[in-house]
């Protein structure tokens, strides 16, 4: 079945709800309206108001109530309408969802998925283009997932729902409807914590996630004419990080470029660069490079194209690293 990411996510939710009656969906406008991006379309009609319900406009309570639902044995999938609106819920996420297993020595745990669209590229209003995944990657107890294709989105969401730890599931807004892909109709899982080499190559490893994977791949194609054939890794899960896949690739290629659409400083790229330096600096042929968004507030629609990495900017980075 050819599906875009919205369709694949919708199918994952429907199949999991059908398989397990403990799975429930809640959030703002996710019922009758089917979510502002339509990811939950049709679920209310199919599964009823006890399992699919619109909440008042209150992000902290959406997450807080989901924690209560989860410790009482349900498996809530909460939608936060945009990543820029998740901040009122940070106390619930960081102080509770992430810690309850530890605080209660395993008596309580929080099988909660918080889905939220993230990233720029759709010319939206302020606060609708955030990419602050690193905030969550620093919190012990959270898992962070960011798919880059419809196929992965479905398998990763199913795994996230079945996971017994809280998962921040980041859906790249820019590629929600970017393209269709063959997606099997049945249930399948893509294990969390496993990156994927999406393009085999040599002499350079590019690490990217979410909407930046396609950008990295395009840049890799652009530099082929110069005789450079980069390897591209799609992280898929940002926390826990699949360090082994990155390390194996870097040891093979000797060079590392990280691409992300979050600001550069203290972005996840910094962690990747640091750990590769710790583990394999002597095997590197060139300094590690990051091509990222800038350390400024996400520009509004008219200027956003300058902000996040384009294939051209990544290709420039590739040239820079190959020449150093």
């Amino acid at each position, binding site marked *: 079945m050819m599906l875009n990411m919205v369709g694949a996510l919708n199918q994952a939710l429907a199949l999991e709800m059908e398989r397990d009656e403990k799975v*429930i969906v809640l959030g703002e406008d996710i019922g009758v309206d089917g979510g502002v991006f339509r990811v939950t379309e049709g679920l209310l009609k199919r599964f009823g108001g*006890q*399992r699919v*319900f619109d*909440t*008042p406009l*209150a992000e*902290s*309570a959406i*997450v*807080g*109530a*989901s*924690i*209560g*639902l*989860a*410790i*009482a*044995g*349900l498996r*809530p999938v909460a939608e936060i309408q945009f990543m820029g609106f998740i901040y*009122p819920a940070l*106390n*619930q996420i960081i*102080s*509770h969802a992430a810690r*309850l*297993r*530890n*605080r*209660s*020595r*395993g*008596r*309580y*745990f929080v099988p909660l998925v918080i889905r939220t669209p993230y990233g720029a590229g759709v010319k939206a209003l302020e606060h609708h283009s955030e990419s602050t995944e690193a905030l969550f990657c620093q919190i*012990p*107890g959270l*898992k962070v997932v960011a798919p880059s294709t419809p196929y992965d989105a479905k398998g990763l969401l199913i795994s996230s729902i079945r*996971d*017994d*730890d809280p998962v921040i599931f980041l859906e790249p807004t820019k590629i929600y409807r970017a393209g269709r892909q063959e997606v099997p109709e049945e249930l399948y899982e893509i294990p969390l*914590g496993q990156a994927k080499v999406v393009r085999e190559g040599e002499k350079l490893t590019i690490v990217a996630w979410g909407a930046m994977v396609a950008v990295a791949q395009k840049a890799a194609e652009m530099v082929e004419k110069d005789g450079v054939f980069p390897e591209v890794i799609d992280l898929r899960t940002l926390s*826990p*990080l699949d*360090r*082994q896949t990155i390390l194996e690739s870097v040891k093979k290629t000797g060079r590392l470029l990280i691409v992300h659409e979050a600001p550069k400083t203290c972005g996840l790229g910094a962690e990747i660069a640091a750990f590769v330096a710790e583990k394999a600096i002597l095997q590197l042929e060139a300094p590690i490079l990051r091509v990222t968004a800038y350390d400024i507030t996400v520009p509004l629609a008219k200027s956003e194209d300058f902000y996040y990495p384009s294939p051209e900017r990544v290709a420039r980075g590739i040239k820079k690293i190959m020449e150093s």
Partner: protein
Amino acid sequence: MIEKYGPLRGEKLQILDENGQARPELEPKLDAPDLKRLYSLMVTTRAADLKALKLQRQGRIGTFAPSLGHEACQVGSAFALEKKDWVFPYFRDLGTYLTLGLPLKSYYLYWMGNEASMHIPPDLNIFTISVPVGSQLPQAVGCALAAKIKKEAAAVLAYFGDGATSEGDFSEALNFAGVFRTPNVFVCYNNQYAISTPVSKQTAARTIAQKAIAYGFAGIVVDGNDVLAMYAATKEALEKARSSGEPTLIEAFTYRMGNHTTSDDAARYRTEDEVNAWAKKDPIERYKLYLKGKGLWDEAFENQTQKEAEDLINDAVEKAESTPPPSLDDLFSYTYKNMTPDLTEELNDLKAFLKEAGK
């Protein structure tokens, strides 16, 4: 009964006055053993609380939040709970725990800084202590919503202080409860202060209970130093929650007789006269007079109660102090269901470091 005490009219439910005189028409139907049990629980709470203060001064436990003055609102409300109900406590809930049967050892361990304290026994539906003020309230609503979805006739009781009512989570939680008609009972210990800030600086509303009206359900102000009133109001609210899924906000009007915590000095922000006036409303003294009037209290009962409390406390202190700190493996192994490769590496590194350092 709850509907009769309109918080907007400034009415407060009191069954026992300060001299232990009861209003017979409102007395809850409790038999003699239960009436005596309420007394024992309050006495044990006070003794265990004072013991914790002593232990803190001796450096045997860390910072501690005393419950002095809260005995009636903690014990009276918790006594109304049934086994299937859930409780979301806050950090000043000693009497609640003792009433529900959480080992006192666990409470002492919590203030000693040992993670083992919050491993709640599986047969008790008590949630862990929430330190960020008011943040347990949306969780309590979610838990109640789960009971409703699963069609379980259980209620969820959440405790918090007057300061918590200024937090966004209070508003969000009570609004959710109103919209979803969740079987919640919200018990606010209005003890007049959030650390140093008086309740008059938390809210311009005449009562906290009246805030419930804005969320579409009932609220009631109860004399929080009257154990019978606390029991009766909570019992009615819990029954309503279980049978019709209606939430209730109970404002337990009381006073924090001690400091906020052992790191606080309440003399900086309140007068001795004020404290002395509240001391005359002591929840235990008033209840003792009531029991005496009923022929349920005598010196022998008092001595026996004190002795039992002392034995329980000594045993808890001994058990808490002989509980080892968590192992290194234990500190790392509850972050996720399964240890991640990163955590395994970090733990091994810590162990290697300690070995090298000869520790």
